[in-house]
């Protein structure tokens, strides 16, 4: 048994968990449909796409950076993947998507680390470029009619658990392991905490920053794959605004935008909080016009509560 103090300490460490439980209880009381297995699976499946992107964003933000280009990377990898898929090979399509994500991430990381330019500016630019490339590539038209063997990824399930949830949990475990048990993870915290000290300690800061942005790009492509498979099409407008959802999940999870602090456990619950709010408000028939305002209010309340004096 954990004693009371330990539980309190854990609660302080992961305020997003507390927030998630609180909001869930709130909706469970107001709607009897909320706390059903099918609805819970529904929430997790809806959240999986944002959550996977947010895991990559977690690493970027802990390292003291930001990646605004994830939404554009999402769209670009989705449309290129879809066109390769139409050519036949599912494996090749997925591979190409991940490579596109990795290239976008590499470009971000390389310019940020080698060129020593602020991540906000660099990824703002690559966000615009990525979106433009997507529109040029598709001429603004959606790509539809994908092979059914690919659509399974978005719609199939294993023992009743949809594949997107399984892929999200797999990614979660991977990023959690990287952050807590690998050199890359330790260096991510170190670079975000104090880049000069990290460099003087012999950390190859440029290399690790590039790796971190590549991971963010690849995870954007991975979540693009899930949405494309689920909708059976790739739209050039995919992913707009997703970067803000990802950042919001990371911040709700307790990370600091100035770097050095954050956890992927916090992030998954940050994403779940946003998912539960969407879902709960839908169940309560609240007009979708209000949903953004509620999300915004929750973010403000969360950061106010987490503020350190």
């Amino acid at each position, binding site marked *: 048994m954990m004693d009371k103090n330990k539980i309190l300490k854990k609660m302080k460490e992961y305020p997003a968990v507390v927030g998630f439980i609180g909001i869930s209880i709130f909706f469970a009381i107001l709607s009897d449909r909320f706390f059903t297995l099918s609805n819970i699976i529904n929430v997790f499946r809806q959240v999986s796409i944002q959550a996977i992107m947010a895991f990559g964003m977690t690493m970027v933000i802990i390292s003291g950076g930001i990646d605004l280009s994830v939404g554009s990377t999402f769209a670009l990898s989705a449309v290129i993947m879809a066109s390769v898929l139409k050519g036949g090979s599912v494996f090749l399509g997925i591979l190409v998507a991940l490579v596109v994500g990795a290239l976008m991430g590499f470009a971000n990381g390389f310019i940020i680390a080698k060129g020593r330019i602020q991540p906000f500016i660099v990824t703002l630019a690559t966000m615009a470029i990525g979106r433009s490339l997507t529109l040029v590539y598709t001429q603004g038209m959606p790509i539809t009619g994908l092979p059914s063997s690919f659509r399974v990824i978005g719609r199939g399930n294993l023992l009743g658990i949809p594949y997107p949830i399984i892929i999200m949990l797999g990614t979660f475990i991977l990023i959690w392991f990287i952050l807590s*048990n*690998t*050199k*890359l*993870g*330790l*260096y991510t*915290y*170190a670079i975000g*905490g*104090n880049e*000069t*000290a*990290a*460099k*003087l*300690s*012999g*950390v*190859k800061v440029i290399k690790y920053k590039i790796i971190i942005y590549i991971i963010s790009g690849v995870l954007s492509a991975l979540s693009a794959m899930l949405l494309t498979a689920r909708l059976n099409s790739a739209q050039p407008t995919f992913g707009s605004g997703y970067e803000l959802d990802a950042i919001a999940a990371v911040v709700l999870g307790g990370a600091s935008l100035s770097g*050095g*602090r954050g956890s992927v456990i916090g992030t998954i619950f940050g994403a779940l909080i946003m998912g539960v709010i969407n879902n709960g408000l839908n169940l309560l028939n609240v007009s979708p016009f209000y949903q953004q305002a509620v999300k915004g209010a929750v973010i403000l309340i969360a950061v106010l509560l987490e503020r350190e004096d």
Partner: protein
Amino acid sequence: MLLKLENITKKFPGVLALDHVNFELNNGEVHALLGENGAGKSTLIKIIGGVHKADEGKIYYEGKIVSFSNPSEAINNGIATIHQELNLFEELTVAENIYIGNIKKAFINKKQMIKEAQNLLSKNEFNIKAESLVKELNISEKQLVAIAKALSLKSKIIIMDEPTASITEHETQTLFKIVKELKNKGIGIIFISHRMEEVFDIADKVTVLRDGKYIGSGYVKDFDQNELINMMVGRKIDDMFPKYNSIENETIFSIENLKIGKMVKNVSFEVKKGEIFGIAGLVGSGKSEIPLGIYGYMPAKWDRMIIENEEIKKIRRPNEALNYGIALVPEDRKSMGLILELDIMKNIIIQNTDLIEKAGVLFWSKAKKIAKAEIKKYSIKATSINQKAENLSGGNQQKVVISKVLKKNPKVVFLVEPTRGIDVGAKVEVYNIINRLANDGNGIVFISSELPEIVSLCDRVLVMHRGKNMGILEGEKITQENILKLATGVDI
């Protein structure tokens, strides 16, 4: 009596920061506040300056009981604090910095403001232009700006928190001249410093705190240095500068014609096994850049560098320097040495991941053992290996930096200002570590602005002036006077 504190007590969660402390300050008096880190000096000046509120006790200011609820109330009543970090706006002008807290109008007449500021500066013989940007000034000029700001507010008490910690000997003398003039104007000055000789130089009275308790106070002339040290540390430190290294005949490190941009020009030196080699010089002389260049942090060139018979052509990054056996304890432990958000264990491991790593995966159980052993080895005072570095005292932070740097078993160790801002007890521990390190056959390069420690600790001393090597002093020639002469460009 200008200020009188009676039985001031202040508790923070888990610590009794001040325990019935008394303090008195008269007009025109410089009162030194002495104590090791954690003794309660900062808490006391924060209570005087309105940052904290005392839990118990009374404050009399000009005869009346006062209780300031925030810093601006204290400032408006004539109590100014000049913090170590100075808190100036780098991108604004000197004039704007002086008047920023005191602007009553919505629109500012910049010309008028600059004129007023210039008057104030000239009246006090501060040689600064009111229209310069603060970022263009050096640290001691910035200090003058902070003092001018205090004067513009007609302050009656000026609190100076370690004003000499980051300025040179020469600048310190200039500062002391100004302090004396403030004194003549009747201003009461509370002066915090770690440097004993400065207390004797400038202070009229002294109050010593230890572990939050009032130990004693009186006229400086009634004490000698050892008495004050004993009051501060509560135990006898017979020898402030232990020295017991023995030099071997073998050279472990040598460099010829080191060049670092415009900062360092053709500097050559060599270090023997077991030797403590000092580098002295004023701020901006290039002494701090030498280790950064050799270590691969700043772009540097040299004709020949040899570490234990191996010639090294180029070092592009710190990780290469580490592989060659070069270690650096950097100048500022907070901004260069530690990741403050991380715990002690991770700070030690960050430079030593190879000890606990297999294919990129870290085995924390090994790290725990290492960190526990290091805490013991360097007697780092901490609640556990998982205490965050930011919550350690200055001396213990420095020991964590030293631990992580030495864990690699380097051959030559550069230490830059390793005792800056740490208490007397911790300083002695650092000197002992350096001696032991030398006796293990390492070469030590000791770079410091504190002349007493350079003189007492080093076997030879290279003195820098404007990027040039002015000469290497040896034996009896190593004196504060000789170093100062060379450092200011005077031949001896």
